[in-house]
């Protein structure tokens, strides 16, 4: 069974982004880039499936600039067997990525695609669901547990108010939530090994996909800042303020 895992190169989660003064976007020049944390969980899960003898091959895919090769190498250092880069300079929106992944699913025929539930840059939370729809496959989003047996996946999902367990037929798309697993640190030998693993580059045109953006970003601004209030000395003063000043209790 083959598992496909899309990975996105995003601004590192520790970086506090700044909005550009001309309002065209956020400043990502000279900012540390990393693999989207939810995608790291997706790769880890796929590699664990391989280690458990359920998956036979883990293929990592990244769509975007040539620099996404680093992200693919990072995925291979965790344990992906090979990488595919869909290289383009065009700004990719979730629907375009889903179409690129659909084309690759057609070529690679994976039984499971494991995606991060959302990327921490655009926070869209769409690509996995869109891919499942385009393929006509079932989906299980926000997974905190994944069990694969007998051509089906049993997935525990994090939903508002608790947990839900779904059984979906394979092939299918699963998207990861935070508590699915804790990704391993790539060891130096594995980082070295990853450099020798195969990495194929294709263009969106090779896959016959139009990736032109559908949404135009008109402007990007900083949200209104919340300023620090006052320090209170004790509980009595706090309760007094809440009652008489803020009038919230």
């Amino acid at each position, binding site marked *: 069974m083959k598992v496909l895992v899309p990975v996105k190169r995003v601004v590192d989660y520790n970086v506090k982004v700044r909005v550009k003064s001309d309002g065209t976007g956020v400043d990502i020049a000279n900012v540390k880039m990393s693999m989207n944390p939810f995608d790291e969980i997706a790769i880890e899960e796929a590699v664990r499936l391989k280690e458990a003898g359920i998956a036979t091959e883990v293929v990592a895919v990244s769509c975007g600039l040539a620099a996404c090769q680093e992200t693919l190498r990072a995925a291979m250092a965790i344990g992906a067997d090979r990488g595919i880069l869909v290289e383009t300079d065009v700004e990719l929106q979730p629907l375009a990525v889903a179409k690129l992944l659909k084309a690759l699913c057609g070529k690679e025929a994976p039984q499971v695609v494991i995606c991060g539930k959302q990327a921490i840059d655009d926070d869209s939370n769409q690509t996995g669901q869109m891919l499942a729809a385009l393929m006509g496959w079932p989906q299980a989003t926000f997974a905190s547990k994944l069990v694969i047996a007998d051509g089906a996946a049993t997935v525990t999902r994090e939903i508002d108010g608790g947990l839900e*367990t779904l059984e979906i037929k394979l092939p299918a798309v699963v998207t990861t939530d935070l508590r699915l697993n804790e990704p391993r640190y790539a060891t130096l030998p594995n980082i070295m090994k990853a450099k020798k693993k195969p990495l194929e580059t294709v263009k969106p045109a090779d896959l016959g996909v139009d990736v032109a953006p559908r949404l135009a970003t008109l402007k990007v601004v900083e949200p209104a800042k919340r300023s620090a209030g006052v*320090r209170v000395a004790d509980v009595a003063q706090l309760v007094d303020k809440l009652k008489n000043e803020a009038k919230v209790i």
Partner: protein
Amino acid sequence: MAILVIAEHDNASLKAATLNAVAAAAELGKAGGGEVHVLVAGANCAAAAAEAAKLAGVAKVRVADAAHYEAQTAENVSALVVALIADNAGDYSHLVAPGTSYGKNVTPRVAALLDVAQISDVVAIESADTFQRPIYAGNALATVKSADRVKVLTVRTTAFEAAAVANEGGAAVEALTAGPDLGVAKLVGRELTKSARPELGAAKIIVSGGRGLGSGENYHKLLEPLADKLGAALGASRAAVDAGFAPNDYQVGQTGKIVAPQLYIAVGVSGAIQHLAGMKDSKVIVAINKDPEAPIFQVADYGLVGDLFEVVPQLVATVS
């Protein structure tokens, strides 16, 4: 031209988030989107549909009642929505769903099948085709314009007031022919956290605990009496959830729930960026933390530096 809202419900009643989605749709209607229709897809869901018909701004409720919508799986519901939009070709210019785990699960499937973009987590409607949404965990707000023939949006529920129950006569309720059961996903079970407290997303007051509480036992022992006294919902930081102090659906933050209550009391929460992203729109924020440098104080209206193990019981005793 009309706007279709996907209702989130448990067959017996609407989820609170649906009211916010309807309010957003009504605002969109005023911006030129047309009248608001609500889709209720479920099994034996007449009560939920009747509730939707009473909401201010709703012109029509369309109900698909069939056994295979009981669990409201993304596959079956999205197929129904796509067919409904296709059958009314050109009538629906907008699709709106609440930005909850349910809406986020279903809506992108619909958008992909319609071959249109989705605009996630809309916080402001500027016109019928231009919307504002947060990116980078709320550290920036982007204004985006859609040229697609159907605009598909999920809305951040805290950004729109709940629609009022104002239409006592009730809008027309129309039954739809159910779509096919795709039979590819089966609900095995749900484990919902049982609580007598208000729902986190709809609560007026939230008492939230962080790693500073030290253990799950302390979390419950200290925060529950305070929450009970205030009639508040309980929340938690990601650190507290990861440490097992509280269940995962208590998590407030960019990757958990986004909340905006009247009063948010953060106890032993340091204030990581991703937590702040989930609660900084609260009207009044109180921070109780022993570390005077904790980032949570930078957003708190009232900060109390002190040992939470002393302060919280005092607070319970003082609040009448």
